């Protein structure tokens, strides 16, 4: 009897229990380590100096000094622990990738086995030698697979043992004290000083950071999480880890205060709002609404105390270090760090639309995308919940003081540096295709950045109150030719503010405001179609004009309010570089201020003149009714009265027309 030895079917290997989600443990440990490191630093600063001696010093500082030593030991232990976990997670990430390869091999080998078996079943005698040879070759491949699988399992076991050993090596105070005194421990003071010295040279920062050991990077992320998380040029993943630790540290601290019965001060409350908003911005990527996009969120900036507590925040959807196409969305008026979650949702919408537009191309285009919501400047901020006069004064002061040339320029510089950082950290030796999208006052800030030489490929100005002072034409923005795009809804009142002249020409105001209206045809940008929004009157200035027309550029279609999504579709095509799909509508031929004058004129007509005429008509009708029952003499009197009133109303209307012509002033 002829036998052909076919290897046994290969079972699947169970998935590793350590997944990407397990990195939450590292975040927890880093947050704890950062908090302890902060306490240790405080204790060191308040304990006895190393060369201080004597009874009085002993009595005064002994306890604090000992506390400083102990907390430093805990800090060193947590630092080692975090490093061990970080290494373990990195190793597990590699092991998961290796397992995927092994399972693909397994599937292929099982497929060959099935094919061989089916051919054996129908084989003729003369085919047997060939099949035996094929089976021998397959057995050899199966043996190699088994060997590689065993090696892989051993590697997993080794990694686990090493992690447990590393954690066990610092689970006693004495071991922590030893770790704190270890001469090989990273000198985080020196590392932080060097990072500060490199400052805004993002290429130098990136090169220096990548030259550090994993232990040094880990130690610095713990000791100076705020510095690492907010320095442009540090890779996005590391910024995210440092910032996430800081966010968690802050939330735990502030909720701890509340839990202890302490009422948070106004600044602490604002601090908590900042922390929770960015936590929510990250969570939104995994929300039911967006989870199926499968996109990761990265915290690229978190400074809750910046700008008097307004805060700095930035969140990326998709890793900009590896993305083919990156967009930086710069929100405008009324936005601060406490609203990064809502702005993050706008960025998520843009992310999805960009992928969808690329998929809709013929043929469909592949490519990775990252969209970033960046609130890294002091946007004109106003507390809309203000009810008390002193709150209004405070909020008004915030607006009045932040919207100055200096602050707008500072915002432009900060944006330009942020963009430099993205260009520096992009892997693969090239820069990403990068678009900056400025909305509202963010468009003015973005224009400042562009005019000063921001290193972006495309610029979008949407709902703009002006393209910044000194910018009169698209060529002043120093962007590549044909890469400045503008969208402005006719019924967006913020877009009525830009102009070559002030709002009141011929007066002391006859100079530039926030700059020229970039939507003007003669500005020279490419104007794309947007939903023009609904007309509005009176309080509708806020509810419809501002809350809807000015803020719906990133939204999905909304039939209840009659909005389309033309703006986000066009922006998506710009972000992906498919600018041929963006049709130039030609832009406005009517001055932006004219929209404002027309609206104000219409409002006065509607609220002042029309009521006078309506009142007159009511009187008129009443008199006519009375007239029908009175004598002829009275008719004469009535006609006199009526003519008099008619003359008065005509006079008022003429006076009004003189005062308020079609184009005021």
């Amino acid at each position, binding site marked *: 009897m002829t036998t052909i030895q076919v290897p046994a079917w290969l079972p699947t290997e169970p998935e590793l229990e350590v997944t990407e989600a397990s990195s939450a443990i590292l975040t927890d440990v880093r947050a704890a380590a950062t908090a302890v490191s902060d306490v240790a630093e405080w204790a060191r600063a308040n304990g006895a100096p190393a060369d201080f001696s004597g009874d009085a010093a002993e009595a005064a500082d002994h306890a604090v000094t000992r506390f400083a030593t102990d907390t430093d030991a805990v800090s060193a232990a947590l630092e080692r622990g975090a490093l061990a976990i970080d290494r373990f997670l990195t190793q597990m990430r590699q092991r998961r990738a290796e397992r995927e390869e092994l399972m693909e091999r397994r599937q292929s080998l099982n497929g060959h086995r099935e094919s061989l078996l089916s051919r054996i079943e129908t084989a003729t005698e003369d085919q047997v030698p060939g099949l035996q040879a094929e089976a021998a070759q397959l057995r050899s491949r199966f043996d190699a697979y088994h060997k590689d699988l065993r090696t892989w399992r051993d590697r997993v076991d080794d990694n686990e043992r090493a992690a447990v050993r590393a954690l066990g090596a610092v689970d006693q105070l004495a071991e922590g004290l030893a770790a704190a005194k270890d001469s090989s421990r990273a000198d985080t003071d020196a590392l932080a000083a060097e990072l500060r010295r490199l400052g805004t040279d993002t290429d130098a920062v990136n090169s220096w950071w990548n030259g550090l050991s994993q232990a040094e990077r880990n130690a610095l992320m713990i000791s100076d999480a705020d510095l690492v998380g907010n320095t442009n040029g540090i890779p996005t993943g590391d910024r995210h880890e440092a910032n996430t630790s800081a966010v968690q540290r802050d939330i735990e601290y502030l909720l701890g205060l509340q839990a202890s019965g302490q009422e948070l001060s106004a600044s602490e409350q604002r601090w908590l709002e900042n922390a929770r908003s960015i936590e929510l911005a990250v969570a939104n990527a995994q929300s039911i609404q967006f989870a199926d996009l499968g996109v990761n969120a990265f915290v690229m900036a978190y400074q809750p105390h910046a700008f008097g507590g307004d805060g700095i925040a930035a969140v990326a959807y998709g890793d900009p270090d590896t993305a083919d196409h990156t967009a930086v969305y710069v929100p405008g008026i009324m936005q601060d760090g406490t609203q990064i979650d809502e702005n993050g949702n706008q960025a998520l919408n843009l992310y999805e639309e960009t992928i969808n537009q690329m998929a809709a191309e013929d043929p469909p285009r592949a490519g990775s995308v990252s969209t970033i919501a960046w609130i890294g400047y002091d946007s004109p901020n106003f507390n809309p919940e203000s009810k008390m006069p002193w709150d209004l004064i405070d909020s008004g002061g915030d607006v009045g003081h932040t919207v100055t040339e200096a602050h707008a320029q500072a915002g432009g510089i900060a944006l330009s540096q942020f963009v430099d950082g993205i260009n520096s950290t992009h892997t693969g030796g090239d820069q990403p295709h990068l678009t900056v999208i400025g909305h509202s006052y963010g468009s003015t800030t973005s224009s400042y950045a562009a005019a000063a030489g921001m290193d972006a490929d495309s610029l979008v100005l949407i709902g703009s109150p002006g393209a910044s002072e000194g910018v009169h034409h698209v060529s002043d923005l120093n962007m590549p030719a044909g890469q400045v795009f503008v969208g402005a809804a006719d019924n967006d009142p913020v877009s009525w503010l830009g102009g070559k002249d002030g709002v009141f020409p011929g007066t002391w105001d006859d100079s530039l*405001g926030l700059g020229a209206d970039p939507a003007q045809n003669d500005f020279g940008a490419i104007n794309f179609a947007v939903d023009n929004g609904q007309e509005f009157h009176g309080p509708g*200035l806020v509810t419809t*004009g*501002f809350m809807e027309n000015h803020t719906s550029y990133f939204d999905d279609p909304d*039939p209840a309010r009659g909005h389309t*999504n033309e703006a986000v579709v066009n922006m998506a095509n710009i972000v992906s570089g498919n600018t041929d799909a963006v049709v130039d509508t030609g832009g406005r031929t009517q001055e932006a201020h004219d929209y404002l004058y027309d609206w104000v004129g219409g409002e006065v007509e509607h609220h002042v003149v029309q009521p006078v005429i309506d009142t007159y008509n009511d009187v008129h009708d009443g008199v006519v009714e009375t007239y029908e029952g009175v004598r002829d003499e009275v008719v004469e009197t009535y006609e006199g009265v009526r003519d008099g009133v008619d003359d008065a109303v005509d006079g008022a209307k003429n006076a009004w027309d003189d005062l308020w012509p079609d184009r005021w002033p």
Partner: protein
Amino acid sequence: MGTVFAMRTTLTILWLAALLVGASACSTGSDEVSPQDREKQVVGAVTEAVPLVEQALDATQVTIGGGWSSCPSGVGHVYSGGGTISAPAGNRDAQLSAVRTALTDAGFEEGTLVEGHVSVSRDEVGMDFTPSAARGPGAWAVSFKGPCKRYGGDDEQYVQDQNLEGERTLLP
């Protein structure tokens, strides 16, 4: 100096717009119903519409969530959300037509303004359905939104607390 004055003038208008919001809570966007009733209105419309779409597409999976959040302007709150309907791939135009018919037959008001979408509304609730390659083959993105409204007192506390709670699952 002229520039500074010009800035002030322009800003005055911006500021006044914002001031209106803060000072006139009664007249600018305050909701005439409680947030709980507003939430019921939105959730009711969504939980009626989505199963109709699910059926029209012969969908295999539906995940829809919603919750309170601040409006994009930072003024007022809105109940909104969305999710994914997973369905077998098919003729896109036929699917869009089937979805539209299912919804309008049930009394939802047709409001589609964009090709490749089906948009409907009921009262002040807008809903949009569109195939989304970004969510995978056969996936449809769902989004919905109530009106942006301002709330005061306990109502404001309610929407802020709900905002912190995050979204909740509406379907399945």
